[in-house]
């Protein structure tokens, strides 16, 4: 039993192994974009739901939507990744794929959302809409962004996959 022979054999095999394994070495992918900010501009005010430290950690910051009674306001939603130094906008992407997306609004209290913007098939999209209020009081506004929903379903929010599901408290006074 010669040691040199054994060593030579081991060297050959480990060299092959190192070549094989180093060939598979991959490059690190940059930090992934994360959707974590939703802003809704109602009339001239903007209200923000943001969780820029990502899932878990610090609890999300949620503005209270304050509106005047018996009003009608144009609304517009923007979505962002706010985790970096400069927020990265996702709204344009969603608009470019508006046939596959739908903003669903669920409300409580004296607030309603109507006049959804439409996609290229004439189906609702909802990135811009009209927010209407009646008497003073409190309520909530739940905004859901669905991916690939059935827009013709009785309740499209039960179809497709949910990308966003946030709820703002609402005060009308």
């Amino acid at each position: 039993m010669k040691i040199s022979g054994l060593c030579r054999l081991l060297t050959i095999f480990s060299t092959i192994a190192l070549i094989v394994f180093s060939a598979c070495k991959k490059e690190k992918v940059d930090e992934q974009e994360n959707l974590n900010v939703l802003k809704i501009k109602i009339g001239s005010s903007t209200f923000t739901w943001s969780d820029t430290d990502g899932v878990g950690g610090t609890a999300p910051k949620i503005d209270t939507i304050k509106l005047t009674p018996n009003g009608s306001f144009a609304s517009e939603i923007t979505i962002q990744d706010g985790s970096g130094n400069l927020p990265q906008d996702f709204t344009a992407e969603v608009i470019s794929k508006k046939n596959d997306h739908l903003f669903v609004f669920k409300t409580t209290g004296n607030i309603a959302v109507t006049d959804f913007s439409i996609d290229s098939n004439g189906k609702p999209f909802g990135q811009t809409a009209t927010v209407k209020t009646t008497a003073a009081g409190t309520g909530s506004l739940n905004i859901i962004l669905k991916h690939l929903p059935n827009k013709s379903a009785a309740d499209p929010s039960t179809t497709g996959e949910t990308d966003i599901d946030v709820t703002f408290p609402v005060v009308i006074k």
Partner: protein
Amino acid sequence: MSKYFMLFSFVIVTWQAQAQNACHFILRGKVKEAHTGAPIAYANVLLKELATGAVTDENGNFTIPNLCRQTYTLDISHVECKKHTEQIAIEGNTESIFTLQHEEKMLSNVVITEKRVALENTQSNSELKGADMDKNKGESLGEMLKSLAGVTSLNTGATISKPVVQGLHSDRVLIFNNGVRQEGQQWGLDHAPEIDPFIANNISVVKGASSIKYGVGAIGGVILVEPRALRDTIGIGGEVNLVGFSNGRTGVLSSMIEGKNQRFSWRLQGTAKKGGNLQTPQYYLSNTGVEELNGSAMLGFRWKSAIFEAFYSHFYSKIGILKDSHIGNLTDLNNAIERGRPAGNDVFSYQIARPAQRVNHDILKLKTTFPTGEAGRLTLTTFLQQDLREEFDAHRPGGKVPIGFTKAEVAFQLPSAGVRADWDHRPISNFHGGGGVEGLFQSNNTYSGALIPDYTQSTIGAYWAERWRRYPFPLEIETGLRYDKRHLQVDSTRFGERNRQFDFDNISFSAGAIYHIGSQGKVSLNVSSAWRSPNVNELFSNGVHHGTASFERGNPNLIAERALNTSVSAHFDHDFFEIDATVFQNVINNFIFLKPDSLPVLTIRGAFPAFSYEQTNAVLRGGDVTTTVRPFKNIAWRVKGSTLFARNKTTNEWLPLMPTDRIETSLTVENQSFKNMTKAYASISLTVAKKQNRVPLSIGDYQAPPAGYGLVGLTLGTDIKLWHKTVTTILNVDNLLNSAYREYLDRLRYFASTPGRNISLKLKMAF
């Protein structure tokens, strides 16, 4: 690598120095009748060279001590047989079975065959081999092992299947692929073993804690995937396997070619598999295709008295994940459960789209075994291994729909290197045994995604085990001791952890005994311990798990799990009755599990139920039994059953995600021959699984466990002689009645039924 060379060199030099020549080998034999297998008592065994011999006892056993390393001439004779002469080469302690053909008219026709007798396990174990292996070929490792009592599977659909041994799985069950500890990404519930079962000639499962021989992690058991030994006669041979499944229109081709010349023995093996969308009784499951491409090469040679073996294997798989199971939030999950089935009506397709997983696994192993003089035999093994796991999401929130498979959302690369030395000493007054040392190093690189941090981990261990056996005294005793130390270093800016160090160490032991009852029965008892250090995902996990819509929080304060396993097994084997039964208790202290938090985590996708990794004391008790009754010639009635009671001792509740009680019975007409067909058989089986009622009430489930079910199966098999070749042909039907059912341990049970009827045709031809 140079450290390993030094270790090798040191060990070799040390043992070479002890080389001596002495005559203390023992030949232990058993003489059996060739047809019935019955032991032959009072046969005379004579060793010509030493003019000594022995007479077999009533069990056909004999022992001849004090033999040298040389070839002896053995005469075996019996009053009813003519004397037969046989040469036997003694290279160490030898155990052989000799079969004598019993001739009624005392014709001079005696056949002697030799076979090595393996040491019997004191621990409960089951083995899949021969015809049972053929019957399950083409399936994944997890699915194949389900045919063993006490082994079930944890599934993510039908294509991702993890073996569950006596209720435990993932990091608590070790897998050895041709003697190499498989270092994959087994921590994930949807990470299937990265192994091509066609490599194996037999797969055995050691049930229960067994750290002594196998090291850190063997809390629930060990799965040994063993290839056939390399060819030992000069020539070339091979085998081709073709398998087709109706469900998923899956095809598998696996072939092997091997050869031996004066110097080398080698084998090349490869497997290709392609399957499309699976079908339940009512609908297709979209994106459930699978593709696999695996290959392995083995080379062996003798050099002086040393045996060398090199082994390389590559495993590649791409598995589609059921589209409907990729959900956005809890509302989506509840909607899917309410719907009870996938939303769309898909058709058949081989196309694999996102979401999907892609896995590449490479193993390179080198092994050498050589005698250390007369003192014993040393085996040195070293391996390099790499697991690359990539997961592809269907889409990113915010509209980006990734296409193709160039960029994975989650990717980990796990390279490992290991070295071990095992030394078996020659028997010293009825003691067999040996010890060894082992070292393992690995580092994880998370390329994308943030499920687990980067880490490096090194482990060292040393063990010694001895067995006492005074042949033919009916009692055998075995005991062993092991020490392991593991160092874990986590370094990840993403997780805010700089150079965080963890140290774990533990002493494990094992003690067992076998009591032989005649030649046909035995009872064994085993008490052994095992341990497992917490995995990085349990320490640092921090994120939402899609598919289960839950937020998982790691716990850096976890300590090691420790298991104490006690098992009693009995085995009896008579002509018309055979039974294998085991009862066990596995007490696991500091058992790591996911405990629900009181508050959900609020994310931009809505609220997710949150879970944190916590520790408790757990106890798993259960049993499994396999019996075969042969009331008439060539009729076999088999019953196989298993039960498990798994409790959280702290909260006095059931543990979640444990296999249900099940029983399988089959009736087989075997050993039929027609024209050019031999070994023909037909078998009908019924598998009944109970509804899982042993679930914890404090840990909610999104949906109650599914109802119990019964499945009928049918198998027809035969060996057909075609052009002087034997083709083993098996036609198998699973779920013959195409019943719709769901399995508690299938993580996709919330979204869809289990696939329905599956007809398969398996052909095996050796050349």
